[in-house]
């Protein structure tokens, strides 16, 4: 399928690509969720289903040279930045062909070829690393921007404050992306933070800071685009807070609504605010998306996913003898 086949303008094609990218992440994660029950992906896994617009909207304005750091909920960031999907699935299965050779699992992803520098599960751990990478770029006069994705819970860590201060002090080319899904595991904001906007704190640190709807991929893109523009042009650190909603359990493949930590109406409105469905309708109304395009996306993804799982499952299993290697460089 090409732009010309579909008779789309460049701009229409780009919009369609956003949908495609979100849908791809969703389908990959749904496949992970489905097959997780087989108990062959033996590692904690945090799905970003419902939050795809942030990874996609931000990554759409990144170039390959820009670098990304992420956290425990990293699949979407990794895929959106162009990470190798076979290596992702293989990593979940603990295979040698995984992006960490099996050493990391779902919570540790890396793909240096596309500037995905690393995701790790200690909350807050990668935030200063991203600042450090921006610092290196600035010291070496390299033009790349550093991006770090983290959650509303992460914002409570002192290291974030230290990172904001350092980035603002040295006017570093970095984009802080705070995905506010209102939850840290099962704990809502009201048990963790006072009632005030997160991004205003970043602003008070002396940087440009914005808030937006993280379920609207075009809003994300436009905020991110403006921020990246400023970051690339000496505007120093940028902070964007994006509201979103986590659909499934914090860790694991399932829905966990039976636990009653959120009300039915809250869940309902959360699911209604689907970044993919809403954007798909918008594209349909604009005559950019048709059922046949959608079908072809689905076909493409199910093939890609089948291939990735097959690749993973037919990949070599690392031996326990290798476990002691690579402790030191």
């Amino acid at each position, binding site marked *: 399928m090409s732009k010309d086949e579909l008779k789309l303008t460049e701009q229409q094609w780009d919009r369609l690509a956003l949908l495609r990218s979100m849908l791809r992440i969703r389908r990959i994660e749904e496949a992970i969720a489905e097959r997780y029950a087989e108990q062959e992906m033996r*590692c904690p896994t945090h799905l970003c289903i419902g939050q795809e617009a942030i990874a996609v909207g931000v990554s759409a304005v990144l170039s390959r040279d820009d670098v990304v750091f992420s956290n425990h909920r990293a699949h979407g960031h990794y895929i959106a930045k162009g990470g190798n999907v076979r290596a992702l699935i293989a990593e979940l299965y603990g295979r040698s062909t995984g992006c960490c050779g099996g*050493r990391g699992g779902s919570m540790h992803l890396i793909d240096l070829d596309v500037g995905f520098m690393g995701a790790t599960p200690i909350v807050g751990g990668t935030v200063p690393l991203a600042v450090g990478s921006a610092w290196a770029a600035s010291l070496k006069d390299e033009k790349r921007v550093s991006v770090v994705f983290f959650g509303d819970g992460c914002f*409570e*860590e002192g290291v974030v404050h230290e990172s904001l201060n350092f980035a603002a002090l040295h006017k570093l080319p970095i984009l802080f992306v705070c995905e506010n899904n209102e939850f840290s595991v*099962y704990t809502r904001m009201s048990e963790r933070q006072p009632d005030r906007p997160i991004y205003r704190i970043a602003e008070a640190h002396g940087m440009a800071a914005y808030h937006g709807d993280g379920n609207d991929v075009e809003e994300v893109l436009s905020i991110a685009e403006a921020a990246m523009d400023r970051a690339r042009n000496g505007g120093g650190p940028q902070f964007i807070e994006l509201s979103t909603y986590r659909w499934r359990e914090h860790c694991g493949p399932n829905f966990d609504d039976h636990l009653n*930590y959120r009300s039915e109406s809250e869940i309902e409105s959360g699911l209604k605010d689907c970044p993919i469905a809403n954007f798909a309708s918008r594209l349909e109304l604009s005559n950019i998306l048709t059922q046949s395009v959608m079908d072809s996306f689905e076909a493409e993804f199910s093939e890609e996913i089948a291939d990735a799982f097959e690749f993973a499952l037919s990949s070599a299993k690392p031996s326990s003898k290798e476990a002691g290697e690579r402790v030191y460089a």
Partner: protein
Amino acid sequence: MPESGMREITYAQAIREGLDQAMEQDANVIVIGEGVPDPKAIFNTTAELREKYGARRVFDMPLSENGVTGVCIGAALSGMRPVMIHQRIDFALLAMDQLVNNAAKWHYMFDGKASVPLVVRVIVGRGWGQGPQHSQSLQAMFSLVPGLKVIMPTTAHDAKGMLISAIEDNNPVMFIEHRWLHQIKDTVPETYYRVPLGQSKVLHEGDTVTVAAFSHMAVEALIAAKALMSVMGIAIEVLDMRSVSPLDVASVLRSVRKTGRLIVADTAFRTGSVAGELITQVVEQAFSALKLPPARIALPDHPMPTSPFMAEHYYPGPETIVAAVADMLGIDKNSDAYIKLTGLLVREGPHDTPNPGFTGPF
């Protein structure tokens, strides 16, 4: 207080009961931690506490490990007895400043004018791909800090009794739980009782080899001891160390003076482990009682790899202990008895879950 009303409950239930009863006893006891009042309730160890004691005594917390540790220290200095909980001990690394520079030293540096009655419950992760950042067993790091107490109860009975002792203690206590102990049942009194800190317990008597074991390794050592006894009639003495600091060296010395042989089994990386410290203290004090060099059973000096294939032989088990005993006693590992013995020790189910019923992902 007599121990009565015995019944079988799990380690997790025993902790919950200990917390519950301590909160009942003393209105100054408060509980705080990420997830404490949530539906999973820290592996059910804090279930229903908020319902019972209210939101002014049972708290969730911001993701601010160092800050909230400091907050708890400040509260402890002001009359409260906080119990703080981290779902993984790895997260306590963020709070080292407050734990080591403040909690451990406050009483000393202020000449005993104030004290910090704080309990920090931390859980050592294992299995199901916990990986490098969620599987560390950091007791040695805390045990080298004067002013901190560090305990690792193994049984449900001791978990409850030592938790109560820790909460009543006027010092900061690191209460280290191994994730694989949570589901293990034991006979636990219904009453409010104390198990003293700093004392080991003999789990299995014997005169051939002393096995001093920490936390989950004491479970493994007991399996080894029973198998050795039933198959080969060999009696090893298993000590559940229970406390890391203070370390009950005296009991180990007593046992070693009888057996002349020592194996120390730890849940941590080999180098720098508390196992090493214990061996050194035994050597310093009872060198001539040792017939053979002591042996250390511990994790290899590298992080836990996430892949189950790679992690397969990462954790020592009863078979490791039996092999070390065999080496010390010169048992022929090709003998029928030994082969039968090791056959008995083969674990059912996957190596990376505590029991076959476990379905991930925690």
